[in-house]
Every structure is written in structure tokens, then in C-alpha cells.
């Protein structure tokens, strides 16, 4: 019996990676290639007046390209055409690219970059999102009548509670910095790039605009990619265009590899947020009205902020039932480096806010946090803030039951008085995360995948969905092998090359398994019908089918499950085909001398629909939770004069093994009928719960309500001293 789905498959790319044979972009030997680097603004806002070139440098040794060298539009093609590839006049953020410089060797390049000084007229920068009036996107979600409930609030039967919650930015810290190699146009005028990326077709789109070429003249090939976490969703479009521009100007291949410092300084990170909650609750804890205001700092250009805001707003009311909801969201412009995609995509910020607000309500009403959540959690048949009736694959009760069984947090006296130098706490977060693109996203995208057989009866899978450490190749292999009943070794996944694979969409949004994997399962079902049944193994039947001239080429275009409806104008309807459901419990110790938080144990109960590869799903949950733990208490991320301060690995700390708790992951499978073998998305979900669970555990330990993430020792000390002024020095 085939156990590809639900079993453990070897990772197809594993041997090459562990033996060092996998070729990351920095490993590529490209004959005749020069190296290129970037001249950047050193201020957050200003006007570019020109450049001073040090006369002591021999400028014949380098090639320089500015915006005038761009043959097409000087734009980073994304959602809105507002970001130049190379700034020609108005500088909007620190590190904005101004010129590309190429040289034969890195040493020459370094000397040349040091010998160019941009002349900039400095202008006052807008660095406070709350003061910014320049909007990238506004979203309104309305359900019921919030005002009528607030008007009826009497402070007894109906109470109103308010809270303001903030999160700082966060760096993805993928292990491999961003990089590209580009080749000059060939005889057919085709530009080719290869590099570290999540989304080959996004890069292709940006090349087409910048160079004014058709799709077949812009070839994008993914190199082995060392992590992304969303950080390689949009920025590779910028870097690929820079490298391709210089390749065109030089007439030779160009390598452009960021070192860690440059990568940290100029690539997009998580959106800082400020979320306000005003909640009307009945004395028994029922949520009667939720009024939520979401503000995201988008940075200097639109990039992906509208869609990050969209996911943030849809998740802002949490996984709770409430008849009256008003959500107002804004993503605003500042002169920060543009913020972008990072695992969770707006949801971790609002999940933190709503879960903290739930704890605040619990304290005010004298309820246990578990009790309040049990009273309000969305269950099958309930209606979300956008009016979506939850009918399919709703694992809310199952994950809550499991987390209570494993942690018994419902019997833990929360915020009990403690003594001693080390205080202990438990905290809960309950949450959901929509899988796939928001609203009509998938319907508009029409993702395509293809399968076919080779002469040996092996199955070739073609999609643009990329492997960057998270397990796409293994997951696809499992789905195909299970669907066809073939050996996993007979599944060949084609390279992510825009000339060889159809556009299955970007590898983002927890969509690769549910959406692309779902299409793959359908394609395989059809292939199986064509090949036909028989007692022989699939590969033999497939080989015979090909040899007798059978047509094995099948391409599937994704169609949304029937009955889904979404209105982009009113933000009403079915926001996502399905949601992943989860509950986390964090167990922490906080030392009262240093206020360092030690996360001892982290328990997650997660409904993923179906775990295609359980071991990898557990890895995703542990890894995502650890990123959330870093976000919660460790990863100080500060901006000064528009610059990210922690711009080296020495200062941009992420958890080490010693900072990692014991994980306990419970996989719950409430199948989604339109996902492959019942699977939903899991990539982003585990990023959402860690911060509020830890904040809640800290509150249990110290009796202090932290409303700003990360809860660094510095912030905890200040909060403690505010509550214990006698301890002030």
C-alpha cells in the first residue's frame, strides 16, 4: 500500500544539499562574469543632485549604469507603479538604489563604490506611521451595528474595554542572502537571470516591464534557495532587474550578491503595526461588538502593503464569533525602507492585538483566559467578520480540546501571586489563518500546473512553485506518488524555470500545498484514467502507455471550490477557501534580575486538514513557532533616522538552540474536501500564535500586561519599574 501521503519520504533535494553539490547562486561559476554593486542614498529623504566621483580612482576600470540606461520603464512592477528601479530624483528611503556599478573583481568594485558620493539635498523625513497621512490602502469591514451596542453599554451588563497594541518590525533572516546572476540579451533578445527567489513569475513580470520585452524574452530560473519566509517574494524583482540592467550595459554576465549587512539594511521586513481595540462584552464574557483600527507602516513605496493590510484586516477580529464588527485598516507611507512579506503577512500583528485584548477582557471580567475563549471561539456553522459561514474543515474545537488535554492550562491559576527571583507563567493563544490568496486572488490568478510522462514512465511535474527549504518538492512528490500509486522515486519535479514550467503562482500565502498541490492531485487523477488500470506497477503501465503513443500531457488551471463568493468592494464574503486552526501554550520563566524571558516549553495543537508529510509539517510548526518566539521577546528591531539599526548578525539576534524551548506539536486533521487528500495550508499559521501566547505567559508570571512586541528585557524592566516604583534606582 502506498504511504507517500502521511508517511516519510526522503527529500529529493536533500542529498545535494547535505553533500554541498546544490548550487546556490553564489556557487555558480559564470565565465566572464563581472560583479556589480549598488550606490545607495545615505538619508531617508531628499533630492538627488548628482554624484561626486573621486578623481583619484581610475574610472575606466568600472562600468556605471543609472536610470537612463533602463530600456523600459524605470519601475519595480508590483501592485502599484510607484517604486523606481533606480532613483533619479526624489529619494524616499535610506539605502534607495541610485546607481549600479560593475567591475571585474570584488575589490575593484568595493573601491569604486567607496569613491562615489551622491550629492543629496536632505529633506525632512516622515518616520512616524501615526503621523503619516499618505495612504497606500484603506480597508473597511462592517458586520452588524457596532454603534448600537456601544450606545447600550452601561458598564455592568455591557462593558467596553479598550486597548492599543504595537509590534515592531522583524527580519526574516533566511540563511542565504539575496543574490542574482544575469546574462546579457542573447541573439533573440532574451534576457536570462538566475537567483535566490520564491516567485519566478514575479521576477519575469518585473523584467518585462523594465526591459520592454515579452514573456518569452525574459527567462527566470530559480537557483537553489536558502530560505525565504516571504523575504524573497518581492525583493528579488528589484535585484534581478539591477543585475540584468548591468548585464545589458556591460554585455557580459553579472553577479550581484548582497552580503549580510547590505541584505539586512535594504531588503523588506515585517510591517510595524499599531492596532486599537474597543470591545463591548457581556458580563458573562460574550463578545457583543468589536471595533478595531489597524495601522501598518508600509515604508516608502506600496510594494505588497495593500495585500498585507488585507490579510491583517480579515484576521483582525481573531477566531471569534461576534455579531457586530467594525474593522478599519490603513497602510500608510513613511520614509522607511519598504516593508514587505514575512510569514504570516499581517496576521501575526493583528493576532497579537486581538489575543492580548482577549486577555485584557478576561482580567476585567474575572474570567480565566481559557473560559473567555471557549465562550467566544468560532465553531462550525458560525459566521466570520466578513460574513463567511464556516462550513468546511473547522478544527477549532478539536485544537482547543487537544491543547487543554496536553497543557491543562484551564486548571492553571492565571496571574496568581508569586515570590522568588524567577517567576513562571503559562499563556494561551487561539487563532486561525486563511490558506491561499485572499478573496478573489486565486480566481484572478488562475494558477496552472502540468504533468506528463517521460519515456521511462516517470512522471514529470511542472510548476513554478519553488523549494526554498520548506519542503515543496517533497510535498509535491508525496501527492503525485499517492495519487498515481507510483513509487516516489519515479516522480521528477522540473526546475522552476519560466521557460519550462507554467505559472502556478507565487510560492507564498500558505497556498502551495492546498492550491497547487490540489491541482496536481487533479492532474494526476486524469493521468491515471488515461494510463488505465492494471495489475502491473504504475511505471510499467505508464511506459507502455507512452510507447503506444498515448498523450500524457495534462495541464490543470485552478478553479475555486464551488459556492465561494467574495466582493472586493465591500470586503464581504468567503475570504479564504479554508482556514488552518491552532492553539498554542507557552510556558516561560522570567528572571527578576535581568528580565530575560526563557521559554521552557511550547505546545501547539494545529488543524492542518491533512499532514501530507507529518514530520515536515511538525518541522514547519516548530520553526514557525520559534520565529514567533523570537518576535515575542528576543528580536529587538529598531529604526533610527529611517535606518534599521540591527543591520549585522551580531546585533540582529534570532534564537539559538539554547533559546529554543521543548516543542510539543499535536497535528489534528479535519480534512478539507477541496484540498489534496484533505490538506490546507500550514506555512504561515505557526507564526501567528507565539507572540500573544508568550505575552500572556509573561503576564501570568509578572502580572504585567505587555502590549508591545517584542517584550525585550529592556521593555519588561520599564514595565516592572512602573508597577514597582520603589525598585527604581
Amino acid at each position: 500500500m502506498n504511504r507517500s501521503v502521511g508517511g516519510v519520504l526522503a527529500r529529493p533535494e536533500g542529498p545535494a544539499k547535505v553533500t554541498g553539490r546544490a548550487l546556490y547562486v553564489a556557487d555558480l561559476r559564470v565565465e566572464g562574469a563581472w560583479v556589480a554593486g549598488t550606490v545607495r542614498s545615505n538619508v531617508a529623504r531628499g533630492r538627488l543632485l548628482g554624484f561626486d566621483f573621486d578623481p583619484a580612482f581610475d574610472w575606466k576600470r568600472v562600468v556605471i549604469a543609472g536610470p537612463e540606461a533602463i530600456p523600459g520603464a524605470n519601475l519595480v512592477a508590483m501592485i502599484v507603479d510607484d517604486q523606481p528601479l533606480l532613483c533619479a530624483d526624489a529619494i524616499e528611503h535610506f539605502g534607495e538604489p541610485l546607481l549600479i556599478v560593475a567591475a571585474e573583481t570584488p575589490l575593484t568594485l568595493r573601491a569604486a563604490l567607496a569613491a562615489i558620493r551622491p550629492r543629496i539635498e536632505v529633506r525632512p523625513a516622515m518616520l512616524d506611521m501615526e503621523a503619516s497621512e499618505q495612504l497606500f490602502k484603506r480597508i473597511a469591514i462592517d458586520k452588524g451595528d457596532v454603534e448600537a451596542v456601544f450606545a447600550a453599554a452601561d458598564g455592568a451588563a455591557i462593558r467596553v474595554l479598550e486597548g492599543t497594541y504595537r509590534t515592531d518590525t522583524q527580519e526574516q533572516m533566511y540563511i542565504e542572502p539575496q543574490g542574482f546572476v544575469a546574462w546579457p540579451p542573447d541573439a533573440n533578445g532574451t534576457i536570462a537571470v538566475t537567483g535566490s527567489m520564491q516567485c519566478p513569475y514575479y521576477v519575469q513580470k518585473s523584467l518585462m516591464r523594465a526591459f520592454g520585452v515579452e514573456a518569452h524574452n525574459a527567462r527566470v530560473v530559480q537557483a537553489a534557495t536558502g530560505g525565504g519566509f516571504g523575504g524573497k517574494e518581492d525583493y528579488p524583482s528589484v535585484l534581478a532587474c539591477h543585475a540584468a540592467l548591468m548585464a545589458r550595459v556591460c554585455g557580459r554576465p553579472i553577479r550581484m550578491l548582497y552580503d549580510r549587512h547590505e541584505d539586512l539594511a535594504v531588503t523588506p521586513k515585517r510591517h510595524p503595526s499599531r492596532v486599537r481595540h474597543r470591545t463591548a462584552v457581556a458580563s458573562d464574557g460574550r463578545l457583543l461588538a468589536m471595533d478595531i483600527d489597524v495601522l501598518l507602516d508600509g515604508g516608502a513605496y506600496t510594494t505588497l502593503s495593500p495585500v498585507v493590510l488585507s490579510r491583517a484586516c480579515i484576521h483582525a477580529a481573531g477566531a471569534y464569533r461576534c455579531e457586530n464588527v467594525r474593522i478599519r485598516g490603513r497602510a500608510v507611507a513613511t520614509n522607511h525602507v519598504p516593508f514587505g512579506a514575512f510569514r504570516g503577512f499581517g496576521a501575526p500583528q493583528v493576532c497579537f492585538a486581538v489575543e492580548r485584548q482577549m486577555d485584557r477582557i478576561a482580567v476585567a471580567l474575572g474570567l480565566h483566559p481559557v473560559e473567555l475563549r471557549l465562550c467566544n471561539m468560532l465553531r462550525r456553522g458560525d459566521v466570520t467578520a466578513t460574513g463567511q459561514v464556516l462550513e468546511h474543515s473547522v478544527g477549532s474545537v478539536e485544537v482547543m480540546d487537544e491543547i487543554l488535554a496536553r497543557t491543562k492550562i484551564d486548571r492553571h491559576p492565571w496571574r496568581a501571586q508569586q515570590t522568588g527571583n524567577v517567576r513562571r507563567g503559562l499563556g494561551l493563544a487561539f487563532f486561525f489563518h486563511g490558506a491561499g490568496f485572499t478573496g478573489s486572488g486565486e480566481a484572478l490568478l488562475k494558477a496552472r500546473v502540468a504533468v506528463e510522462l517521460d519515456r521511462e514512465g516517470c512522471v514529470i511535474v511542472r510548476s513554478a512553485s519553488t523549494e526554498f527549504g520548506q519542503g515543496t518538492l517533497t510535498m509535491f512528490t508525496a501527492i503525485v506518488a499517492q495519487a498515481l500509486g507510483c513509487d516516489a522515486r519515479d516522480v521528477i519535479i522540473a526546475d522552476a524555470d519560466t521557460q519550462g514550467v507554467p505559472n502556478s503562482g507565487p510560492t507564498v500565502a500558505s497556498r502551495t500545498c492546498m492550491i497547487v498541490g490540489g491541482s496536481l492531485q487533479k492532474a494526476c487523477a486524469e493521468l491515471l484514467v488515461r494510463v488505465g488500470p492494471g495489475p502491473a506497477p504504475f511505471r510499467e503501465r505508464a511506459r507502455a502507455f507512452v510507447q503506444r503513443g498515448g498523450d500524457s500531457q495534462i495541464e490543470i488551471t485552478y478553479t475555486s471550490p464551488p459556492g465561494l463568493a467574495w466582493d472586493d468592494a465591500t470586503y464581504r464574503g468567503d475570504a479564504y477557501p479554508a482556514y488552518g486552526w491552532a492553539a498554542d501554550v507557552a510556558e516561560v520563566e522570567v528572571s527578576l534580575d535581568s528580565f530575560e524571558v526563557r521559554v521552557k516549553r511550547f505546545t501547539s495543537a494545529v488543524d492542518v486538514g491533512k499532514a501530507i508529510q507529518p514530520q515536515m509539517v511538525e518541522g514547519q510548526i516548530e520553526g514557525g513557532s520559534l520565529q514567533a518566539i523570537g518576535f515575542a521577546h528576543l528580536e529587538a528591531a529598531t529604526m533610527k533616522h529611517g535606518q534599521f539599526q540591527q543591520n549585522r548578525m551580531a546585533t540582529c539576534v534570532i534564537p539559538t538552540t539554547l533559546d529554543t524551548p521543548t516543542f510539543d506539536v499535536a497535528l489534528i486533521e479535519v480534512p478539507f474536501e477541496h484540498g489534496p487528500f484533505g490538506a490546507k495550508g500550514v506555512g504561515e499559521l505557526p507564526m501567528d500564535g507565539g507572540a500573544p501566547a508568550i505575552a500572556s505567559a509573561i503576564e501570568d508570571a509578572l502580572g504585567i500586561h505587555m502590549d508591545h512586541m517584542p517584550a525585550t528585557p529592556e521593555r519588561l524592566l520599564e514595565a516592572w519599574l512602573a508597577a514597582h516604583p520603589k525598585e527604581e534606582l
Partner: protein
Amino acid sequence: MQRPRTLEQALEVLARATSSARLLAGGTDLMVEFETGRTHPDVVFDLWGVKELRYVRAENGGLRLGSLSTCRDLLDSALAREGADLLVLAADEVGAEQIKNRATLGGNLGTASPASDLGPVLSVLRARVRLVSLRGEREVSVDDFWTGYRATQRANDELIESVFIPTCPRDERRGFRKVGTRRAQSISKVVVAMALRVDGGVLQGVRSAAGSVAERIVRLSTLERALDGQRPSRALVSDATRDSARVDARPIDDVRSTARYRRATLQRVAEGLILDLAGIEGAH
């Protein structure tokens, strides 16, 4: 780049060195300075090959550590574990294993970082630095050796030859605590070393030093004076550490932490260390 292989060769090349020369021991600091463009020396003397400076040996009345001894060497040395216990604890806090394999005692002293993990311990252990040059040799206490922010009294032609750590009193109690940005591979926010004896219920020989709380490693002399010869009580320790954190520390806000956090944490950590060492329960 010049690569002397013996102490004699090293002293000869150093004799002509100017202030724009840099000495490379393990390179764990200097390589970062090169990468960030903070240093542009005319010449670099790579001392890594001077193997005769890499030793740990017992000497009359103490322990002598060659300046090229690495953190890993200290961790692996039974002599060091016995004769310089706190130093070994501190060496274990330095960086990743790769860094421990290259980071040297002499390099650490020469860099004179205020955030040095080894610094407060060397100070508390009464370490003496032996400087040699073709002109001769001299020995100074580490407290005098450091003169300010990343500054030492080493002359251009001098080499840090070794460090002498006198044998600690048999009944001395010692403690070390580093508060970093995370639990491993971190740069300290506050680092404190403490030594004291309890003699008939009275504190004696209190020595304490801290890192990351001023422009250099500082002795917590206010605390030492307040406690020496006293019967310890929670109130006394609390007052002494408070005064010390106010007077001896000169912390700043930077990318890793805040001045307020450093001052408060210095007080709280020092208080906890003293109460622990003196056998008094419950810091808070």
C-alpha cells in the same frame, strides 16, 4: 602583512611599528573591523604563528597564560579550570566554537572592548599583564592596563606576552554572570564578576568588576568599599549595589540595550551574586 614565527622575530618587527600598525592574534575582532571599514592600518602583524605564546603553565604563586592562548585552550586546560575558574566560565561565553578556537586572551586584552566577557573576570582575579619589547619587559595590573574606550597602555613596540593570575585565597567565593542579547553567541549587555570571602560572618576581600556598563571594564569600587569588613544583610547589599550602579557605572544607550537597563541590571545582578556568594537567600 608580516608574519613573525617567534617571539624574537615579533619583537624585532614591532620595534619599528607606528601607531597605524595593527596586531592580529586570532583576528576575531580585527577581521570584523576590516569588513566594516573601521580600520585601515599601514601594516598588520599577524602573531598567530608565534606558537611559543600559546601555553598555560603553573608558576610560582599562580598561573601564567600565554597571550595567544585561545578560549578553547582555556576551556581544555585542567590548570586553568583549577587556577582561573571564573576565566574558564567567561571563556565559555565567548562566541561560537569557531570563535573560541581563534579568540585569544592577548587579543581580548589588546582590543580592550568595554563589552569583553573576559575583562571583568581578569580584573577580579587580579590578573597582571606582562608587556615585552626590545627595550625590556614590565608587568601591570589589568585595571591599569586598560586606560579607556578600546585603549590600553601598550606602547607601539610592545607585545602582550602573557597574563599572570595569582593563586586565589582558598576560602574565596567567586561568581560570574553574563546578561547578553540571547543565551549563546551574544555580545554582553551587562557582565559582572565577583569574589569575596566570608570570615566569621564578615565580608572580606570583596572584588568586583563589570563590563558593558562604561567606556571600559570598571571595578565596582563603591560596592567593594561599602561591603568590605561588614556583616552582610539584604539591606546593606541592596544599598551597596545601588550606590555602585549609580556611581561606578557610566552606561549608554546603544543598539543592544539602554543605559537604564544596564544600570538597573548591573545592580540587580550584582546584588544577586553577592547574596548567593554570602549565602543569603532571596534577592527579591
